[in-house]
């Protein structure tokens, strides 16, 4: 059962991702239709048990499609959503309006939060070291790391890479960040942060460059403008139109590994709404902010991009499942 729930959860993420991407491209019907057709082809040769699961996924996608086209009666849709919520042990999940393009309603959370991105050290130095005048020789990089460890390094807002494949992005507040991930004062336990925030390490993904451990950093940006959807997408994760992972607040019960008190992703530089039809409006980093760089203790595995990993994982699992049948 646990595996099934996990699979449904992962599948939901992949589906929601497709919705968000299709929405952002403005070609929802075309893109999403192709995706559904493709999955239908894959499902065809499956065995009965696997077909059930696959059909369940397919029905979810078709549901979203119908909801998008407004061909599904609202009460039926609400009922279906309620069932999904129950099956995932989560509070009510979707609001139909949001996925149909309604404007997001600002949440009642006036408190200042921080947008964080966890980034591999190699990515950090590739993007930022030259801007600190470091030519990426080992001596230079060690100096840079020691500056980070002292807590002296900052990144200007305009150069903040909180999106894309540079890392894992989430919104939280400082207390929660340290309560969740700290291994000492001002020090984040990299492995714990990654594990606590996201998917299982043991996903079966084989990396091109398996690393025993890697350094990582967390970039932390003050976020004062919160504009995520009230009663928005309360699945464990959400995905925005940049393809970045996001988390939305959830009930504490039942206990699980998803972060409590978390939000969605940040567009650090853009003051306008970039996601008119996506699930959430963006958080905005405070204008002119300088974002501290926090050191993480070495992470004991290479950090993949979890959005992509997740999407691929679902596809691979479905394909593997079908082939094995």
């Amino acid at each position, binding site marked *: 059962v646990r595996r099934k729930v996990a699979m449904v959860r992962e599948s939901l993420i992949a589906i929601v991702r497709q919705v968000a991407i299709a929405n952002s491209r403005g070609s929802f019907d075309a893109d999403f239709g192709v995706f559904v057709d493709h999955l239908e082809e894959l499902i065809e040769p499956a065995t009965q048990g696997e077909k059930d699961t696959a059909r369940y996924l397919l029905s979810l996608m078709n549901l979203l499609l119908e909801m998008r086209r407004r061909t599904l009666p609202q009460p039926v849709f609400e009922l279906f959503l309620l069932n999904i919520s129950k099956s995932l042990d989560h509070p009510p999940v979707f609001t139909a309006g949001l996925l149909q393009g309604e404007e997001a309603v600002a949440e009642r959370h006036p408190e200042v939060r921080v947008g964080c991105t966890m980034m*591999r050290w*190699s*990515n950090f130095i*590739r*993007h930022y070291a*030259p*801007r*600190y*005048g*470091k*030519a*990426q*020789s080992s001596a*230079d990089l060690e*100096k840079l790391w020691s*500056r980070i460890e002292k807590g002296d*390094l*900052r*990144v*200007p807002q*305009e*150069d903040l*890479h909180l999106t*894309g*494949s*540079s890392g894992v992005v989430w919104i939280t507040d400082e207390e929660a960040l340290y309560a969740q991930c700290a291994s000492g004062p001002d020090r984040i336990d990299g492995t714990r942060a990654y594990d606590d925030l996201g998917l299982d390490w043991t996903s079966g*993904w084989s*990396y*091109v*460059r398996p690393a025993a451990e890697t350094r990582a950093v967390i970039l932390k940006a003050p976020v004062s403008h919160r504009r995520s959807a009230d009663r928005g997408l309360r699945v464990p994760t959400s995905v925005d139109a940049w393809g970045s992972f996001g988390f939305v607040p959830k009930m504490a019960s039942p206990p699980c590994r998803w972060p409590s008190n978390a939000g969605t992703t940040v567009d650090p530089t853009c003051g306008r709404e970039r996601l008119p039809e996506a699930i959430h409006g963006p958080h905005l980093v405070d204008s002119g902010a*300088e974002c501290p760089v926090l050191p993480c203790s070495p992470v004991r595995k290479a*950090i*993949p*991009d979890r*959005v*992509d*990993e997740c999407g*691929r994982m679902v596809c691979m699992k479905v394909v593997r499942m079908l082939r094995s049948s």
Partner: protein
Amino acid sequence: MDTPAVHPFFDLELTDRARWIAGYCDRALSPSLIFPILPFAFPLLPRGESPLTWLEDQFRRAGAVTAKAGRLREAVVDLLRRELDGIDVNDHLQVLGTLVDLARVCSFTEVGPKLRDWIRGDHFASAFYEVDGHPISLRQVLWSAIIAWGVSEEMRPYLKRDLGRAELECGELCFLALGRLSPFDAITEIPTTCTWPLPYRDEVLRSFFEGFSHAARTLVEPDLLPAWQRCFAELWWNPEISELFQPYMDSFRNLLSDVGLDICKRPGEEKFDLRPKERAFAGLLIDLEPIKRQVDERILTYYEGLLVGSTMNFAGWAAPAYGTRHEAGY
């Protein structure tokens, strides 16, 4: 079955190997570079990895296990020396940027002369390539490689040239490299840093001054007086710079203090005292009076330029000297 240590493309002939590498680094696959035979198919990458990281990894593996690293080196050096001549790629800059970056991380120093030629000729001044979806200035990677391998005196004019060009995104690298070659030039260029984002400026100036942390008195050698004069004249009187610098003055003073230098302005005079903490009597008196007249003329020219430039169009009117720092010789 054991995974092979390196990819079969290592066994291709040089021409095909170079084409394979160029094709793999390309943003979109060029039809002429497709290798349909299975062993040579381009490997899929998980997101977060790039052809650069994959090739770097292959280079390390090849060197460690089968000593084939030379074959990758040979192909990359050949591609860069020929500037991809004869290779049909979709995105020339993307391939070139990736290869330069690969040469940098794997220390293919043979391409150093070629990279220096590009910088001397001011090639790729507005070129960018992408890493993880983020644009990176090609000039930044070129300087990064050259500086990491050791920058020579002959590159000093080019360091100064690129230092003030914000669009190249390599000012910080150039400033520190220049500081190692010639503290005089670096001190003169301090005002240029005022336009950089504060976190970068702070870090770069700190790194520069930290280089003298055990020998602060070398910063107050008489030879450096003209450099300090020019620096302070700009910081105080250049209308475009002084506004940016004033809020930063305290930080600047702290920065100097951290490396063992005290600075204070004499009240009512255009003079600054710059003294090492441990030898207060051996300081430098930075007197701006001698160059004040020149500065006044420049300020006048600057404001005239603003006025005239906005309403009239005189033939042969030169750009305001302070508007283009690098053309403003003292």
